[in-house]
């Protein structure tokens, strides 16, 4: 799309080396882009610049010009003479400019950082051993780089409120707070819920909620993410696990069609938290609190853990055999899911073709918040369109299926994930039909089903989703699934092969993508690994004109 557009660049001399940066780039970001770092606390690329932490002080100079003629002054070597600013400047409020010179590691700059670090630590409780932020704390990191190693401070430290619950999901320790105001700016500028502020003055300044208000919006946990220290912690994650024991795996949030990029943090097969991963095309650096809580579904009480036939536990093979019995030679209906991955939908489409089944699907909708929760509460509706599983937008419920069952047009059903009784299919109709249910959690439909095929959650399998902007994004398996459960791809491939009497293969996402890229020109030349961590914007053609339910949100502009 616009990725090939040539950006205007400016040349800046950073520590003696010339670099080209896009025009208008922030100096902190610019230096980060060349693999170096200007330490900072209050600066955040997605929030307004306040320049209050003073950690990013650098030396900055511009080429000198003759006042009368305006011509550049040159030194003895014929190089431009640099007029260095008399005082250090903050990198976060500096925009790259042609000919600019910066020193990010001069003695003065290091002295500034040492000074700021000392000041930040004098009233800090230094309770790292019991602090949840330890291991991912900027204060700890920069104290290692720029700390004195001992304290010159012999006076009494300030006392401030500790363990204040400022919202249902966020705990505040004011003594650890370095007053960077990131959380305040986030609440105001991104979450549109201005509830945080400082009270009192000077070194007694204290972060707090407005009287009678709480930090309870659905984005409150982002303040925990952007808090550079341990002042704001998540009540859910607090004291559960040290971050350095956790493994991070890239994933995609399944809450809505936004498809926020996430990181899943796990240890020994157990997920401890989900945090947003920066993707400027999708979710910037944010995600919803409700999306983070979805990891709890992986260990939910009603998780399906065993294959079952007629209510009795069975083996995979026996369950497949019973499924084939229901699928083959009957008037079959398939209830597909927009929660299934692109790869799964593609395999399901093969089953549809060989069984000539009728496909039904529901459009799960909810209220959008205009930010990162869209009205379409499924991660992959557009995938179902692109794989050809459906050719138009589905209805919000399955009353069409109910009518077909009432009219006796169908003998059996293969249901992926959905709970039919919640979507308008009567219990009577369900009872008189042979149902094969494949899904992660039990519901009324799985209870009524003759065959239950447990499947894996998004955290346990690999695949890809196509989000609201037709961006294909991949997710990886973060933790192993429950013991003895085959992957969704193996399950679908086995069914698809055995229905026509072929020998099933053991597919993975890569092999499915080989077929996928041939089957639909939208995917031509792409493969699973090629999606990369940031995803690939697809060219959906006329599909984009469908009347999707999403309204404007952070990254979505309806046509």
């Amino acid at each position, binding site marked *: 799309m616009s990725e090939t557009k040539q950006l205007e660049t400016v040349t800046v001399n950073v520590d003696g080396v010339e670099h080209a940066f896009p025009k208008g780039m922030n100096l902190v970001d610019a230096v980060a882009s060349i693999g170096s770092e200007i330490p900072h606390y209050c600066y955040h690329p997605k929030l307004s610049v306040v320049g209050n932490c003073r950690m990013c*002080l650098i030396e900055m100079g511009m080429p000198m010009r003759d006042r009368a003629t305006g011509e550049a002054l040159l030194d003895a070597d014929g190089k431009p003479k640099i007029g260095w600013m008399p005082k250090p400047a903050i990198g976060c409020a500096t925009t790259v400019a042609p000919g600019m010179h910066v020193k990010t590691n001069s003695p003065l700059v290091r002295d*500034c950082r*040492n000074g700021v670090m000392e*000041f*930040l630590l004098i009233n800090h409780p230094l309770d790292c051993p019991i602090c949840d932020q330890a291991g991912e704390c900027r204060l700890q990191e920069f104290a290692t780089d720029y700390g004195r190693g001992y304290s*010159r*401070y012999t006076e009494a430290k*300030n006392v401030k409120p500790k363990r204040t619950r400022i919202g249902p999901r966020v705990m505040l320790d004011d003594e650890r707070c370095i007053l960077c105001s990131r959380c305040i700016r986030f609440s105001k500028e991104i979450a549109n819920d201005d509830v945080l502020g400082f009270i009192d003055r*000077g070194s*007694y300044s204290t972060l707090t909620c407005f009287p009678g208000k709480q930090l309870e919006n659905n984005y409150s946990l982002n303040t925990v993410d952007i808090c550079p220290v341990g002042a704001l912690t998540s009540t859910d994650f607090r004291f559960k696990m040290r971050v350095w024991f956790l493994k991070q795996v890239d994933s995609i949030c399944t809450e809505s069609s936004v498809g926020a990029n996430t990181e899943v943090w796990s240890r020994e097969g157990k997920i401890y938290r989900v945090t947003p991963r920066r993707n400027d095309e999708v979710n910037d650096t944010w995600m919803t609190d409700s999306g983070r809580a979805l990891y709890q579904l992986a260990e939910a009480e009603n998780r399906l853990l065993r294959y079952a036939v007629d209510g009795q536990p069975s083996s995979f093979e026996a369950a497949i055999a019973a499924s084939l019995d229901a699928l083959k030679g009957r008037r079959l209906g398939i209830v597909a899911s927009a929660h299934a991955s692109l790869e799964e939908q593609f395999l399901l489409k093969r089953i549809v073709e060989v069984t000539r089944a009728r496909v039904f699907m529901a459009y799960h909708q909810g209220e959008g918040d205009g930010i990162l929760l869209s009205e379409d509460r499924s991660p992959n509706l557009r995938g179902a369109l692109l794989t050809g599983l459906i050719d138009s937008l589905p209805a919000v419920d399955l009353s069409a299926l109910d009518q077909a069952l009432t009219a006796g047009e169908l003998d059996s059903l293969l249901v992926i994930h959905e709970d039919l009784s919640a979507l308008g299919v009567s219990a009577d109709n369900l009872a008189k039909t042979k149902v094969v249910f494949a899904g992660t959690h039990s519901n009324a439909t799985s209870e009524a089903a003759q065959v239950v095929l447990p499947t894996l959650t998004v955290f346990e399998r690999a695949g890809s989703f196509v989000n609201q902007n037709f961006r294909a994004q991949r997710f990886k398996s973060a933790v192993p699934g429950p013991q003895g459960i085959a992957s969704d791809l193996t399950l679908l491939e086995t069914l698809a092969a055995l229905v026509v009497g072929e020998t099933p293969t053991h597919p993975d996402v890569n092999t499915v993508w080989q077929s996928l890229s041939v089957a639909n020109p939208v995917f031509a030349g792409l493969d699973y690994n090629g999606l990369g961590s940031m995803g690939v914007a697809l060219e959906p053609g006329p599909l984009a004109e469908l009347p999707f339910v999403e309204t404007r949100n952070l990254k979505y502009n309806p046509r």
Partner: protein
Amino acid sequence: MAVEETRIIFKHIDRQGYTNGIDCYERHGGYAELKKAVGMEPDAICAEVMESGVRGRGGAGFPAGMKWKFLDRKSGKPIYLVCNADESEPGTFKDRQIIYKDPHQLIEGMMITAFAIRAKLAFIYIRGEFFEGARILERAIEEARAKNYLGDNILGSGYSCDIIVHRGAGAYICGEETGLIESLEGKRPYPRIKPPYFPAALGLYQCPTIVNNVETLCNVKHIVNMSGKVFAEIGTPGNTGTRIWCVSGHVRKPGYYEFPCAALTLGELIYDICGGLLPGRSLKAVIPGGSSSKILRADERFKGKLRDGTEFDWGINDIPMDFDSLSAVGSMSGSGGVIVMDDTTDIVEALANINYFYAHESCGQCTPCREGVQWMKKVTYRMCNGAAREEDVELLRSIAGQIEGRTICAFGEAASWPVQSFLAKFNDEFVAKAKAQAARNASGEAVETTLI
């Protein structure tokens, strides 16, 4: 021979029978300059102010005409005029006199300025503690509005502008112009980062804004009266007009005194005008421009070169009272608050007192000032409470060095300059105090606690 006061701004203030009502003001020729100004081209007034060379009286001493020139007129946004009446610098009490005793002079100066810069609306941001001052100004504005000196179509000129009085809530930082603007917008007075938020381009409500001190705005009236050229003849080149010196401390006649710039020396001010020190006392030090300016030691010799190249070698009494001379001796004329200390002063306690003020007033926005100034206060307090250590001198010097030049606004300098200058000039007293206290503590004598 004593130098005579030349009162321009304070011409009528404290005169027998002079009241702050509009009738009295008009009887003394008030609002004549506004009448003259509305008949002039706005740019011509700006040119007069430029020619007058009048420098800001709030502390920084930046030429007012230049400030007005920086106004962003291309943006098409409304222009605002803000009068900074948040006079809070310790040692300074001149603006209060104008507001309480001659409010119409300020209003006239403001309306001329507003007309000259084509302001849409003008504000007076008045210090929270000036309760009565705010009432006086409100009443004076009503009086002036009744006579059409402000409001719609001022004196038939077609120009309309009003003044809104906004009371602060008692915070020193509201005197910092961008902090003042934030406060005026209804927010915490956190000073803004510059760049990009220079008031002349992105000021009040992100519109071009001029913020001037009370005394500066009053000067505009007199510049219109006598023309910029004549005004520039008062004082010396670069230091034009009169200045009101607010003398406090150990002198017999503390008070406010108005003199042309460089018309007298610091010694003349102390000994001739203020009646000298109390009997039997000798001069120890002077802070010449409000508590944030650097202290001058009485027995110092000040040598150097002025901007025009003349070399000088002054004792403390020889320093001419103007912007450039005080800056040449390493201090500043600041807001004109001259604080005189005699030999009874405990210099450590004096610094502890100043540090208490700045620690109390630091807004807390940026790290060095928030943490460092409080730390300096705690150290100097400890020094006054019997636990001074010799290494505290070096510690204080280091803390001040870590603040100066690294903060969002000039408060960092205002708080660190006193510490730096006190330590540089009275290092011996700090060390002596530490030694004395160490000896006292070792001998088991009672702890010395001198600070109130």
